[in-house]
């Protein structure tokens, strides 16, 4: 039976992190090199952790799926990274960043974790600047900031529209320096297939070498998962193609609690789906809503060109419904309303699944030069993909799955329910509650990797000791065999000439649609129960009918995808169960049954002020729900209102 102890230090909020560090055991400098740490994932979280652990003297092995650690999904983040520097002197502080983050998460995150995040945010900026990250600057040479995602202070640091790229290259270069120093060994084109436990502790992983197909064993004194988010369970998302749940899911099946799997963020401003061959969705920065006006035709079935629809027949529905916030309502409200007007048949474009984001008035007011100065690169990006110029006709946008707030449960030390298993970045559930604020994922990934894990892992290692490691343990052999069996099962239809086979992508797409329809922005009991009945059927179909060509002994991209989709097929079930169990609207999600008289989301603190943590109960048995209650001692949960 799983025990959830968040290990939050006692004492006042502002002193908790100091206290934790003071009370943590230390590994002496001379002993650090005796410890081997496996870091899976080289995004912001993994690369920063690997670099810092190696600087401290630990031996690190770093794994990633891509051909180079620099290509992790973090590279795609555009907008920026928050920190409480208050360089703009506009009233920001650690407490304000903490408050905004916890409120933005709709009071479903731990106070202590979020406060620590705000505290270390400033160190991150210092570190990145020292590494040579070319952040935007003012004329005087100081750092520039912008306000992002509706924040009332300018606390977002950015490097053009490529902030994630620059931060990742900073962390990557720090890690490469440690590779040269012999303290980090890189294992690119490796996919973790499973976690190995010895005496109940995380002691190793089993990987597939994606080039040779060999199953490889690696042992360590601790295992760090920084494997990113699971948004691709919906098939279409803004995530990179290889983003997956496999590593986290395998850890779950070995006993790690999975927290809040239903919490997924759906971003309102993405380029709409344009065909059934489509493989991914492209995010358009939400800064566009600062000047663009969102609208659809007032009546259904209006197929006129946007410029032919007179003002009186347009419905600027966000401005109409939310007069004080208008087009700048939070992501979830904007997304939900876009879906609603499209469901009413008022959507635009070929598919009817899009709304307009119109710059006409802003261009008339400020002139095209001013607008292009602000959004030129975004306009170009849009035009490159759609062949339409947003300067002369409105953009079309639609919501898309973007970020997973849910993830493996971790305590204050970032350790999961399996001793020795640490989880960082988007892969854990920690800091964003039921909704993540813009520019805070990069902050969290780097906070975890540079400034939190390096201390907390020492405490664990000091206690656990540096006993000799070996991959000869029977546990490795067992796990390796299971991985081999799974691969064989995925390949079983190959060359059989069996009729009615489907490709991995086709099956994945069906899973995605099912989830989008029943476990998307708005959810209800009926739909969720329906999904719970359909998922096992689809999973069965997957195993019966999946077409995976080639063999396991070579580079086989179909096999790689099939393994990830097989895990999504299982994971989807706890996601829907979690959504069903949470009978409140909160953060990103509306439960139809839980609304105010004005059809706005209604949170239910009396019954749901907790983290929902799912425990694996064995094949064919329903997962067990545990609850970690959330206590608010420094802020008072308020209901959000954007009217």
């Amino acid at each position, binding site marked *: 039976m799983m025990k959830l102890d968040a290990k939050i230090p006692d004492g006042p909020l502002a002193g908790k992190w100091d206290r934790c560090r003071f009370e943590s055991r230390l590994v002496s400098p001379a002993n650090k090199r005796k410890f081997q740490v496996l870091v899976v994932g080289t995004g912001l979280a993994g690369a920063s952790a690997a*670099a*810092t652990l190696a*600087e401290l003297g630990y031996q690190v092995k770093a794994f990633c799926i891509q*051909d*180079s650690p*620099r*290509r992790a*999904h973090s*590279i*795609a983040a555009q907008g920026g990274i928050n920190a409480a*520097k208050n360089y703009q002197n506009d009233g920001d502080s650690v407490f304000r960043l903490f408050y905004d983050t916890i409120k933005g998460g709709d009071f479903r995150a731990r106070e202590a974790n979020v406060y620590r995040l705000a505290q270390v945010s400033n*160190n991150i900026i*210092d*570190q990145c*600047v*020292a*590494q*040579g990250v070319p*952040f935007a*600057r*003012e004329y005087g*040479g*100081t*750092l520039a900031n912008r306000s992002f995602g509706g924040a009332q202070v300018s606390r977002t640091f950015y490097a*053009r529209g*490529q902030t994630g*790229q*620059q931060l990742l*290259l900073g962390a990557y*270069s*720090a890690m*490469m320096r440690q*590779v*040269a120093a012999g303290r980090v060994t890189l294992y*690119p084109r490796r996919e973790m297939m499973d976690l190995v436990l010895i005496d109940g502790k995380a002691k190793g992983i089993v990987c597939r070498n994606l080039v040779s197909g060999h199953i490889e064993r690696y042992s360590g004194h601790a295992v760090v998962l920084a494997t990113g988010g699971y948004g691709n369970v919906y098939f279409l998302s803004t995530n*990179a*193609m*290889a983003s997956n749940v496999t590593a986290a899911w395998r850890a779950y099946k070995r006993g790690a609690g999975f927290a809040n799997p239903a919490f997924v963020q759906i971003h309102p401003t993405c380029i709409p789906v*344009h*065909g059934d*061959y489509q*493989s991914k969705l492209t995010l358009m920065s939400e800064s566009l809503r600062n000047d663009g006006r969102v609208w659809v035709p007032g009546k259904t079935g209006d197929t006129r060109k946007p410029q032919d629809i007179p003002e009186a027949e347009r419905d600027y529905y966000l401005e109409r419904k939310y007069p004080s916030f208008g087009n700048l309502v939070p992501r979830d409200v904007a997304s939900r309303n876009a879906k609603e007007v499209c469901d009413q048949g008022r959507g635009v*474009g*070929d598919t009817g699944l899009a709304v307009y984001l119109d710059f006409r008035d802003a261009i008339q007011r400020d002139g095209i030069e001013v607008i292009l100065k602000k959004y030129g690169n975004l306009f170009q990006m849009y035009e*490159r*993909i759609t*062949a339409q110029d947003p300067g002369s006709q409105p953009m079309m946008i639609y919501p898309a799955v973007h970020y997973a707030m849910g993830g493996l449960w971790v305590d204050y030390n970032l350790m999961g329910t399996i001793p020795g298993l640490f989880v960082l970045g988007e892969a854990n559930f920690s800091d964003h509650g039921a909704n993540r604020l813009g520019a805070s994922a990069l902050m969290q990934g780097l906070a975890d990797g*540079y400034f939190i894990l390096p201390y907390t892992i020492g405490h664990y290692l000091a206690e656990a000791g540096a006993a000799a490691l070996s991959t000869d343990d029977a546990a490795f052999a067992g796990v390796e065999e299971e991985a081999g069996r799974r691969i064989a099962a995925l390949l079983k239809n190959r*060359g059989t000439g069996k009729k009615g*086979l489907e*490709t991995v*992508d*086709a099956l994945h797409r069906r899973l995605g649609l099912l989830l989008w329809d029943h476990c998307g922005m708005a959810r209800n009991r009926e739909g969720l129960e329906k999904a719970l009945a359909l998922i096992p059927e689809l999973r069965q179909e997957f195993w019966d009918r999946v*077409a995976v*060509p*080639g063999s396991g002994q*070579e*580079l086989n*991209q*179909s096999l790689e995808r099939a393994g990830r989709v097989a895990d999504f097929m299982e994971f989807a079930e706890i996601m829907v169960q979690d959504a069903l169990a949470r009978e409140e609207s909160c953060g990103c999600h509306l439960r139809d049954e839980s609304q105010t008289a004005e059809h706005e989301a209604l949170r239910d603190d009396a019954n749901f002020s907790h983290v929902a943590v799912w425990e694996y109960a064995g094949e064919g048995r329903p997962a067990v729900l545990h609850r970690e209650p959330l206590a608010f001692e420094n802020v008072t949960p308020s209901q959000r209102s954007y009217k």
Partner: protein
Amino acid sequence: MAAKTITLNLKIWRQAGAGASGRFEAYRLERLDTDMSFPEMLDVLNERLTLEGREPVAFDHDCREGICGMCGAVVDGIAHGPAKETTLCQLHLRHFQDGQTLTIEPFRAKAFPVVKDLVVDRSALDRVIQAGGFISVNTGSAPDANGIPVPQHKAEQAMDAAACIGCGACIASCPNAAAMLFVGAKISQLALLPQGELEREQRALAMVQAMDREGFGNCTNQRECEAVCPKGISIRNIARLNREFLRAAFIGEPLK
């Protein structure tokens, strides 16, 4: 968005593995939506091959947004295809004519051995970065960020260079398979910033040495690299690399 469709004839390099010999295979794809991206077209082909029980074409890709640097192939002799400053994943079929034949092959260079079909091994680039593409600052020892002012125009220039996505197109398109644009971009980014000053000479010498060690060729000013770079990295960075190297060779201490 346009619902225009075209037919394309593809000649794709197929090679089973690193040691195997390769050859071109022809495929005809009909009714391709011109809003489709290049990798989406390859997806369509691969779905078909899979259902026919044939081997799909292996190709690298991940972000499909032009930023991770994972994708890349040579299309009709041009790395990343005909659209300027565009990665293969951001190249849409509207750039091609109905009935056109396209020859698609992997990035070729001595330092980039083929792994399978269009997939190549670019780990040499990581090793060049290991030689010196960083600023040596341990986590925790950084001064306050505004304690290191950087003139705006320098920061912008550094950012221009830092935009490199490490795809390797510059190398694949260079007749000498030189990595000067890639290395020049990193050297420039760090040389332009005050933070990079301390290790300037050491970095230039070490990265150039690593570049030679990996089997990359020398720059003879062909400018092909700049022409295909999806991020518009300028060959001014190569000039800066040469200056940095010469400067280091004259005044720097010899490499340890």
